[in-house]
């Protein structure tokens, strides 16, 4: 039996299979490792704040990503922020980076953070399917702020 993949020589030339080795990470993979994996393995601002002003939980059924965000507001400023989460590296790195970014920021300013800014922080290309993972953090933050401003409360947040 011919188990070899029957490619023409031209087709075979297109393929660079040697790179699929466990050694030597490419530049892009190094970037992934530095940007994403570091935050994933050693996330910043984790835990439940004792005296949070509002909280918000968001869930992404695709990956099973689960984020509970705790925000302390003092005179219109996010004076402290934390999260408890589980899920894929993209979602967890994203929330870790976002909490770093908004700590000390005016609530008004935090409300205006654009999707592009979050994607920029991640620093790697995010495909359409992973967009939900990457932006779950922003969803939690903006919905949390909205709910806080309209006086609602997220009852689920404590259970993450």
């Amino acid at each position, binding site marked *: *039996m*011919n*188990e*070899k*993949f*029957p*490619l023409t020589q031209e*087709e075979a030339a*297109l*393929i*660079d*299979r040697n*790179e*699929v*080795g*466990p*050694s030597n*990470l490419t530049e*892009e*993979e190094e970037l*992934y*490792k530095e940007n994403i*994996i570091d935050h994933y393995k050693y996330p910043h601002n984790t835990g439940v704040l004792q005296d949070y002003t509002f909280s918000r939980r968001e869930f992404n*059924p*695709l*990956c*099973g990503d689960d984020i509970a965000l705790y925000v302390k507001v003092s005179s219109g400023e996010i004076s402290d922020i934390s999260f408890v989460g*589980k*899920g*894929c*590296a*993209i979602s967890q790195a994203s929330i870790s980076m976002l909490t770093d970014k908004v700590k000390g920021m005016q609530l008004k300013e935090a409300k205006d953070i654009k999707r592009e800014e979050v994607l920029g922080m991640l620093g790697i290309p995010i*495909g359409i399917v*992973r967009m939900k*993972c990457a932006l779950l953090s922003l969803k939690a933050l903006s919905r949390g702020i909205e709910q806080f401003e309209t006086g609602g409360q997220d009852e689920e947040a404590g259970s993450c």
Partner: protein
Amino acid sequence: MQVTKNLQLLDGRLVNDFPILKQTVNGKRLAYMDNGATTQKPQEVIDAMTNYYQKDNANVHRGVYQLSQRATTAYEHAHDVVAKFIGAKFEEVIFTKSATESLNLLAYSLGSTLKPGDEIVLSQMEHHSNLVPWQQLAKEKGLALKFIPIIENYRLDMDAAKRLITPKTKIVSIVHMSNVLGTINNVKELAKLAHANGSFMIIDGAQSVPHMPVNVKELDCDFLVFSGHKMLAPTGIGVLYGKKEILEKMKPFLYGGDMISEVTFENSTWNDLPWKFEAGTPNIAEAVGLAAAIYYLQKLGMGKVFEHDLFITSYALEKLSQIDGLKIIGPSNIDERGGAVSFTLEGVHPHDLSEILDRFGVAVRGGHHCAMPLMSALKLNSTTRASFYVYNTKEDVDILVEGIKKAKEIFK
């Protein structure tokens, strides 16, 4: 693990029949191993559909002109091809848009005869499509829903099945081959249990019919559902097989054109089988495509198709189980399973893993595989799954293994 049987691979050259597989992804040859989700289409299937649209396209069962006659012949012939493929009669083969729709048809039509307190038996390894319709029906009508649990080596607990299937049971609906675990269930035995208790037996064959010889007479099921796109055919065409005498008594699911015999302002009577269950203009080109796909599979031989799957699966199980931190979620022996191989990798989320694998041209699925209750029963969030078909080679598995090693490196 070693290949225990004298399994043979299909001729590797058949990959040339699939134009889509000749491309590169991220500079790498596409190693497509997400066949549990959908399969690629051979040129013969693409040609059959193109040919239909270029030469024969018309609505079926309506016009008496040449084109309509040709379209009708092709569409009806497709029913015949499917019927012979699974050992059924022509009038027992109903075309739907998917296996999901077939199951919804059954839940609606069979469901209308059920009474509060009646019981439905499913298993813990059902796809959402064979769970949610029954679950919602049970809520509406006050029925009890019971689940056959999973025991060691990811098999169904047949002793529990004997206790759960009782004279109160009206419907037993079980997946033939799990899309997550790869487990092949003893549906023949379950059909005996169902019938001994006066219950209908439904088999979800979405993962089995494409991969192994399946004969409805031999299994003695009352219903079998599957979809075309998981067996080299296009999307938008699914099959419901039902025993003629049962289908005749069932009420239609969708109402409209073609499914009627006579309509007045007050009343309607129904068309003969199978048309009674095919309201509206059907997916004609897709039916033509399905027939072409079945021809293709029959040329290979379904026994050979299954052997090929098992060969690649046993090779994959052997190679994957050598990776540190990798756990196979499914039967370890190929005697009880097919070619869907799920696994977890310590420290790497399945979605991150499948994204990294994509960089090497490897297409696998990461997630809950539309079986969230199963995931929770296994205490998992998700798995990565490689699922094989006729065009996969040992080399595909090698690329997968190398990719996993690379992911481990990145996540170290």
